[in-house]
């Protein structure tokens, strides 16, 4: 056990799975460090240096740098998966899925189903989500609700280093395509992470905090915003349950309903947009299956329905913050008491 960053945790999971299973290969733009860029290949390891060091140990046959063609290398990864490899494809920014959408949602997601289970696609797609670096509307979105729409894909949204390592190992060993969403503002986050490999199962939410007054469901980086809010609320005597679903498909509805049954109040904090997002999805599930427990209307804390601004001052207004979560929790408490 030692303290590791989110970046190190992701790197260690890939490293250990590559050592464990020679069919695990890495495919993507810049995973080795910018082929053709001159200098030492291994120096970069992607724009966030997450795959740094892997080329040195596993060589260019297993750490494969590709040209800038998402459709091309995603197709290559799916083909490799169909023919017995266990690829980890690096879709740098999740916004780039537009370029390879057909490969991901029509090929990878449906392959096993359409061929009657004769073949499988054990593919992991690692990709970066989230706003906060002022890198504009095309590099800052949270598209996990889009991925979650498609039956046949599993979707993972780790909120910290411990979860990132255990969930990525599970993703790589999973026989279905998994989209693994890394929040770019979490790469520097530090936490105790075991040195040994370990697996966190999909579909089991993390009960981050026990409170009993209000249920806050939060995803990815928003878990930390929720924790910040819970500290403020605790001083006012409002104790929050915080639930981090960890995976949006499969979604641990049971744990959410269990908590709402006790609190009767639900606030959902999601960095994805307010329409057709995970917040809407979770709200609909609780409205359908947990309505009788509710003592106040469900409140969604999400960004507005706009493209993500690049200007730092506007971007910080766009991202949900602890103040908005606190206000939402106060409101559901007031409703419940009144």
């Amino acid at each position, binding site marked *: 056990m030692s303290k590791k960053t989110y970046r190190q945790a992701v790197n260690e999971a890939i490293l250990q799975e590559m050592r464990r299973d020679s069919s695990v290969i890495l495919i993507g733009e810049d995973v080795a460090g910018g082929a053709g860029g001159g200098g030492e290949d291994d120096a970069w390891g992607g724009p966030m240096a997450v795959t740094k060091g892997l080329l040195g140990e596993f060589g260019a046959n297993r750490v494969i740098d590709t040209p800038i063609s998402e459709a091309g290398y995603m197709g290559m990864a799916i083909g490799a998966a169909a023919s017995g490899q266990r690829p980890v494809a690096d879709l740098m920014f999740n916004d780039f899925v537009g370029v390879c959408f057909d490969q991901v949602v029509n090929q990878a997601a449906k392959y096993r189903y359409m061929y009657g289970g004769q073949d499988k696609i054990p593919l992991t797609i690692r990709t970066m989500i989230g706003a906060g670096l002022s890198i504009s509307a095309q590099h800052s979105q949270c598209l996990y609700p889009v991925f979650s729409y498609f039956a046949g894909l599993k979707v993972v949204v780790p909120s910290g280093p*411990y979860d990132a390592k255990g969930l990525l190992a599970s993703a790589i060993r999973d026989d279905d395509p998994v989209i693994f969403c890394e929040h770019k503002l979490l790469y520097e986050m530090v936490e105790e992470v075991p040195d*040994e*490999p*370990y697996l*966190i*199962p999909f579909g*089991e939410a993390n*009960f981050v905090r*026990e409170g009993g007054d209000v249920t806050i469901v939060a995803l990815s980086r928003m878990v930390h915003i929720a924790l910040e809010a819970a500290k403020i609320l605790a001083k006012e005597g409002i104790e929050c349950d915080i639930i981090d679903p960890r995976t949006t498909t499969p979604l641990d509805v049971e744990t959410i309903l269990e908590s709402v049954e006790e609190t009767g109040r639900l606030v959902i904090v999601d960095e994805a947009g307010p329409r057709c997002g995970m917040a809407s999805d979770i709200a609909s599930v609780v409205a359908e299956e947990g309505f009788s427990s509710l003592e106040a209307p469900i409140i969604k804390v999400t960004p507005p329905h706009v493209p993500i601004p690049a200007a730092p001052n506007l971007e910080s207004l766009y991202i949900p913050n602890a103040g908005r979560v606190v206000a939402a929790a106060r409101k559901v408490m007031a409703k419940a008491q009144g």
Partner: protein
Amino acid sequence: MSENTLVGITMPKWGMAMASGKIVGWLADPGAALEKGDEILEIETEKTVNVLEAAAAGTLARLVAAPGDELPVGSLLGVIARGDTCEAAIDGFIADFQASFVPPQEGEAADEEPRQITIDGDITLSWRHFPAENPADDTPVILIHGFGGAQNSWVLNIPRLGERRDLYTLDLPGHGGSSKEVGDGRLAGLAGNLSAFMAALSLPRAHLVGHSLGASLAATLAARTPEQVASLTLISGLGAGTRVNRAYVEAFLAAERRKPLKACMQQLFANPALVTRAMVEEVLKAKRIEWAQDALQAIAAAAVFGPEAASPAQDLTQLAAPLQIIWGREDRIAPADQLAGLPATAKCSLIDDAGHMVHMEAATRVNDLICDFLDRGP
């Protein structure tokens, strides 16, 4: 009237991670006459609910903390008065305490990290030392946890046992922060690791306190190298041949998620409500580690399902060391009926309303029994 006639009751520190505790309720009324050791207050921590005892005899003069209060370690909870005191003196005592009390900062509350030592060439063990300021004798006490546990399962015992004894705790091979190599998983091998651990720390002799699997290891070590063992306290375990609930062990090994593991862990206590989410999460984290799961399987295969389970119970009358045995009457993992027919030389205590984790569930009783035994012998 001097100040030393007033004694503050403060928030205890149960375990390395404890930074604060929540007052569940007072068990004594204001004005009650207290003996040292009387149960006065129930406190909930992230891990468990436990009872605080009076540290001194006297009158419970003032309740400072109220049920529901969440207070940092060291905070003033109440005041015990000895002899004649007046209200003004108590007010003054409280005011002085509050004025000078500095709550521990975040991070400051944590003890030092466990240390690592390598034995038998390539086995790394995680261990801690709790040195006593004025130890009662030179022989230290080693606490040995049970199957699937870790050294922090002694959190409720360490403060009291450590008052006058040098204490050592360790994570057994395959557990906690220790390496996950357990060989064939048999008691002899693990007891050999324990013996090597003592040698590596230059501890020629120690009082061994073992729980469950840890008790079996302590008894095994006492039979193999009696010169290393000054006394034996066996809690919920008797050595090779201890009868255990196989269904529990199977369920524990198979549990990969919170719910089944919680159901499983509830069998460890007479009062299942003591199993908190945080406790389950901690065990789950340890169990998730692939090599730890392999190690647990190997130990279970040898000690629970394999040759050692079938072997006759270890003959404890052959042991040279003074022996005490502590068991929870409601133990659902290792049934208490196997205590019948134990050697008359052993000091045997069967504790009501406690299950397999008797050292947690009845920590006060168990701590008393261990301290008495170490002070006076059986």
